[in-house]
């Protein structure tokens, strides 16, 4: 039961999804499975949330050093869920003017945007301390990156203003993007496509079962 049921389930569901792509009348099964997928995915999110709350409640209960921050996590969770579930007009909870919308714009957005903005600083320090032209390949990478970074902003054209129109850095950047970059992306895409196909097949056939926890 522990092993067989999941394996059979994966195989049946996976094959149905593939076959229904070719047999139009089977679309109804595909649609149903997709709906179930979203129901289960919602529960997976709840699982994550419950886990998070449990870990933080634990911190507070055991009076660990970072217990106050555990409290902040739970506070943050409640501060948005209570208005979102009960005081924001039900299904139109995300319309402008609701409390949920207000929290979204003034709390969630600044926090998430700033978290990602931090990366700008880390890119800077990594480019200073870690990105080395350690091999021919890495050098090619860095040179291409240079042309792109400078060519995509007016500086590139300004530095190469002495070259005739059509041969300036901006145009190099366009050329790199349109041709060698496109070719490289294609190779990666086709490779990944085959990788996905073969992995998907292994999973469906039950040859790859690490996702269930150990062989």
């Amino acid at each position: 039961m522990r092993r067989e049921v999941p394996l059979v389930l994966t195989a049946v569901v996976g094959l149905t999804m593939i076959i229904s792509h070719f047999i139009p009348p089977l679309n109804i099964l595909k649609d149903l499975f997709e709906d179930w997928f979203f129901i289960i995915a919602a529960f997976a999110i709840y699982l994550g949330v419950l886990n998070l709350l449990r870990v933080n409640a634990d911190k507070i209960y055991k009076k660990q050093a970072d217990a106050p921050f555990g409290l902040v996590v739970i506070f943050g969770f409640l501060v948005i869920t209570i208005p979102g579930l009960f005081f924001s007009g039900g299904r139109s909870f995300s319309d402008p003017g609701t409390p949920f919308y207000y929290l979204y714009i003034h709390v969630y957005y600044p926090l998430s945007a700033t978290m990602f903005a931090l990366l700008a600083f880390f890119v800077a320090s990594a480019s200073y301390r870690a990105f080395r032209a350690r091999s021919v390949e890495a050098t090619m990478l860095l040179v291409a990156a240079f042309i792109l970074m400078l060519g995509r902003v007016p500086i590139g054209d300004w530095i190469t203003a002495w070259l005739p129109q059509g041969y300036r850095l901006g145009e190099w950047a366009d050329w790199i993007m349109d041709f060698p970059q496109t070719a490289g992306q294609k190779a990666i895409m086709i490779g990944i496509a085959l990788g996905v196909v073969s992995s998907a097949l292994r999973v469906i056939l039950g040859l790859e079962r690490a996702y269930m926890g150990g062989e």
Partner: protein
Amino acid sequence: MSGEVVGVWIGAILTLGIFSFLYKDNPFYKFSEALFVGVSAGYWFVVTFWQYFLPKLIDNLVLAYTLLTVEGKIDYHWVYVLGGGLGVLMLLRLLPSVGWLSRWSLAFIVGTTAGLQFTRYLESNGIIQVKGTILPLIVGGNLNTTIGNIVIVVGTFCGLIYFFFSKEHKGAFGGAARVGVWFLMITFGALFGYTVMSRMSLLIGRMDFLFSNWLGLIG
């Protein structure tokens, strides 16, 4: 003070809280980070409740129930009980003794993803990209297109050769693979540049928020 103004102040304080990490790890940052973790969990909780859980599960079950009580017929929508059941099994992972049951739901998720991706990737990333690589190497009277086509065909071809696993990279084959690596490196360079661009844009956005929306220094 209007709600809007208070909101901008809250946003600005939290923004500075996260940025304070750049100086060093400190309680102000830890507070903002903990708040972020809590708020984003709550955000997703609310969104999934209203937009997945309710319409996909509850609405279908209510429909089935209404049909049963009003018209007395057993409707197809009852199958959603099964979907809901698989969802509930997912939560059992929290209980160590029956946690293994959550594998059933995981198996369903993995199965659907594998099945959907199998055909999609083969078609859109495989077949269509291959079709798009079938280009004439010489286009009369148009040097730019000629060079561009050659670059695309050679690059894609050699890049794929690099990913060949069952043949050793030596001789002409190895040479082609090496050319393939060069193309990959140029691609990564481009991605690198674009990623830097993206991160800088986000920072500009935050800076602009602090200086214009909050402090009103920029008109």
